[in-house]
């Protein structure tokens, strides 16, 4: 379960490429544990380090630049989070400390993984994103606004995602409120499509 998200103020670290895939966020070779932690060191490993094995930072990479060392907000381009559905990408970002990503667009699986792990995915037009780069930015989830020097912009977020992020709620508990509806659905569906409901050890 993630921490509730209300407002966030951070310097906005620009990583303004399009189609940044989850392999780039957390390369396969960095996914060494079977759990959800121990991934932050591998975040953007291919770009962040001159030598990934020795963890020698590449001074040119945005998150290695001193002014962005405490950034919890990333600015990205189009189709951020495409590629493999590995949730490790979001776990690595969350463990590193990223709480909000402002992008031109997100890959859908990645976007919903963000919500489930307490990271707010915000979609804004490219010209706004360009303007936010390097600025101190405030994100207010309840008001659905992003503000910085030069303006206030509102963003869209699904009601469901917003509620989960604001309250740090667990989706499974939310769904269990519908226990009766689920049972009723399955009873009716089993009569209609009995072959969907497999017997254990069918083989």
């Amino acid at each position, binding site marked *: 379960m993630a921490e509730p998200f209300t407002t966030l103020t951070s310097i906005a670290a620009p990583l303004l490429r399009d*189609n940044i*895939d989850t*392999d*780039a966020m957390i*390369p*396969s*070779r*960095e*996914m*060494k*544990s*079977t*759990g*959800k932690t121990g991934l932050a060191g591998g975040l953007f490993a*291919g770009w962040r380090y001159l030598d990934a094995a020795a963890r020698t930072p590449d001074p040119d990479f945005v998150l290695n630049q001193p002014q962005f060392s405490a950034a919890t907000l990333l600015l990205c381009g*189009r*189709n951020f989070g*495409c*590629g*493999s*559905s*590995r*949730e*490790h990408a*979001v776990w690595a970002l969350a463990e590193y400390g990223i709480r909000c990503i402002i992008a031109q*667009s997100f*890959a*859908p*699986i990645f976007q*919903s*993984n963000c919500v*489930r*792990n307490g990271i707010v995915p915000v979609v804004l037009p490219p010209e706004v994103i360009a303007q936010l780069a390097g600025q101190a930015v405030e994100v207010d989830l309840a008001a659905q606004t992003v503000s910085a020097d030069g303006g206030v912009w509102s963003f869209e977020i*699904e*009601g*469901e995602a*917003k*509620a989960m992020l604001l309250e740090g709620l667990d*989706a*499974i508990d*939310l*769904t*269990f409120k*519908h226990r009766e*509806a*689920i049972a009723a*659905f*399955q009873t009716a*569906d089993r009569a209609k*499509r*009995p*072959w*969907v*409901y*497999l*017997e*254990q*050890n*069918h*083989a």
Partner: protein
Amino acid sequence: MTTLFDRIWDAHVVAPLPGGAALVAIDRVLLHERTGAAALNALAEAGRTVADPARVFAMMDHIVDTLPGRTDQTLMPGGQAFITETRAAAQAAGITLFDVGDPDQGIMHVVSPELGIVLPGLTLIAPDSHTCTQGALGALAWGIGSSEAEHAMATGTLRLTRPKTMRVTFTGTLAPGVTAKDMMLALIAAHGAGGGAGHVVEFAGQAVTALDMEARMTLCNMATEFSAFAGLIAPDDVTFDWLKGRRYAPKGAHWDAARAGWRDLRSDADAVFDSEIEIDAASIAPMVSWGTSPQASVAVTGSVPEDATSAMLDYMALTAGAPLVGTPIDAAFIGSCTNARLSDLRRAAALLKGCKVAPGIRAICVPGSSAVRRAAEAEGLDQVFLDAGFEWRMSGCSMCFFAGGESFAEGSRVISSTNRNFESRQGLRVKTHIASPETVAASAIAGAIADARELAGG
């Protein structure tokens, strides 16, 4: 007015949720050893159980070794823990596991259709972006994250916002030597790697219905490379004939009832989609990628575009305007959930028969499932691959992706029947060119990117 997607969605809505979302019933959940232990253990740690273990299946495919004589030991550092922990978690949860050494082991998106785990009209999810492959059977199948897998296993449902719909119609007929892989690369090259974002994409048209079941899976496999929520093909007699008698497919009276219902799984003639694309199948040539996104693909007879970005050109060590044919390669790979089914291996073998891989080229064939491997061996295809100079492997994802263990040599250039050409996907700084198995086979023989139609004499 109703689309195929609408029919499947409407049949699965359990309850509406605030903000236009819905609680949607999930019929099948598949796991693999890469994330299976994490999902099952997180569930157990939260004190929850798998609601219906009979409808959850786990496969060993991503990390397991593909060298003959394999065990739980694998070349990925620390990989063995993923295998043993997934096995333990699967046993504890009471779900069906296709373990290392099981005759049904294989890549999840090859095995599930093979065993009839996926069926028309079902909802099926897996923490793997290529789950969309299984939409080829008329199921709504899509990739999710581990947390959503936990949710689906615990509750039998997912909370979803209804995706938009798109129809991609391939009219006319494909030219000889052009395959489903080329259709997808052509679509993505023309409409962008983000072209299908937020949409369930139904593939339709004469060139799609003419495809056999395995080629339909190749087509739907790359729906995720088009950023689609899922890919779908309306089930027809090709689907039903292919599924009949498979282990988890309905039998007897259930089969008849199921098939009668499946015949309604199609889009009405007047169905309205949020978006439509039409492509003339006859205009498609065999394709090959030149860059680090599937959208960076051109006809194999074409050239690297003049407006190619320098980042991609630098990574791929190519120059704008250079022809693709004749680009020397270091390695060739036939495998993956895209193109490692029996028909793929047959078509590659037909080209390789009596030929040798060019000197110095590392060539590897990894069948998509243990069943595909057995079937290929029964036809002698293994010998054709071996005689040509290919390695003949056990089934698994293998060098479709690099997990820190086995990989192609650093910086080498690989022609590959897989679906992703991202940076370092097949090894550090490896330059991947994705193409059909035919193009991979022909290029392996030539030692350079080649047009398979020339080799085939057509």
